[in-house]
């Protein structure tokens, strides 16, 4: 399973998302879209959503920190 978190350092929900993944021993790639403008652009194009966090799980994009949706998508 490939998990990517698009985040900004100032966003509390991003931190909560990453903490949740860590607690559940899910490996993920963290992309700081405040630093990586190219990644930010791609993220928005793909999801048509201008907000963080966004979590990409094997091609499926979840917007915002929604614990239940994450659990379902991750099979937890």
């Amino acid at each position, binding site marked *: 399973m490939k998990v990517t978190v698009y985040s*900004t*350092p*100032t*966003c*509390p*929900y*991003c*931190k*909560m998302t990453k903490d*949740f993944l860590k607690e559940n021993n899910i490996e993920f790639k963290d992309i700081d*879209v*405040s630093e990586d*403008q190219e990644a*930010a652009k791609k993220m*928005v194009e793909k999801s*048509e*959503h*201008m*907000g*963080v966090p966004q979590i990409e799980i094997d091609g499926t994009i979840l*917007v915002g*920190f*929604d*614990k*239940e949706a994450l659990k379902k998508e991750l099979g937890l």
Partner: protein
Amino acid sequence: MYDVIIIGAGPAGLTAAVYAARKKLSTLVISENIGGQAALSSDIENYLGFQFVTGADLVQKFEEHIKEFDIDLELGSNVKSITEIAGGFEVETKEDRYNGRVVVIASGKIPKRLNISGEKEFLGKGVTYCATCDAPLFSRKDVAVIGGGNSALDATLQSTKIANKIYLININPKLGGDEVVKEKIEAAENVTILNSTETLKIKGEVFVQQLKIKDIISGLETNLDVQGVFIEIGSIPSVNFVPSSIKRNEIGEIIVDARNRTNITGIFACGDVTEVLEKQIIIAAGEGSKAALGAYEYLARTKDGR
């Protein structure tokens, strides 16, 4: 059954949790997020012990502090209701039910909506209520910040370093908020302040493209080309789940006495969700400690059943 269930994990709720845990009360904190509004503040310069700290860093400190104690923390959970049961209360979330002898409501405030056309439709498509979170996505874009108080000033100031052009749209004749921040904004080259201006409509296709505004004095309506709209027009108490039997004031804030007791025995409230005079991090924290001590005193008194 927990001794105390605290709803909310901002400065009030987390301080209440530390005080409750130090009194050896079994404690559960249920919250949608950690840090509440404090987590979204960019610069905090009036919390004693910190000459300067960001909201994110202060909340990180809070989190480290509460992890020193045996406190159960249920994050990402929205409370739906509080119901009285034998010996306490049942707190229901979307996923679970929890029982506690005492409930402390510390749910804080949530952003106020503008209630204009396009606001809902373009949420996450350029419209955001969390400039702190999302501003970096508007690099070199033109944005509008709606509001005239501290949170609007804060969002504007953060955006000056990121966005191309920023319109600060204020319905009142003058900006409110802190003088220090106001001076910084007035000095910024890429900010246009539009006072006495009403926001009418947000327009676009997939994403936001335009904002329709109206000069209240001349009645003139214009369209601004913007890709982002940051709505920062204040907040309302987060009380959707609060039973109607709990007394609130005319703006929805929970009424508490000097010991943070509500009119329902066994339910306490603290911080920005209450009618406490000033909404400040340090005040919310102090109120949280009072509520936990009030709860402890109440539990000690009613130990042999209620």
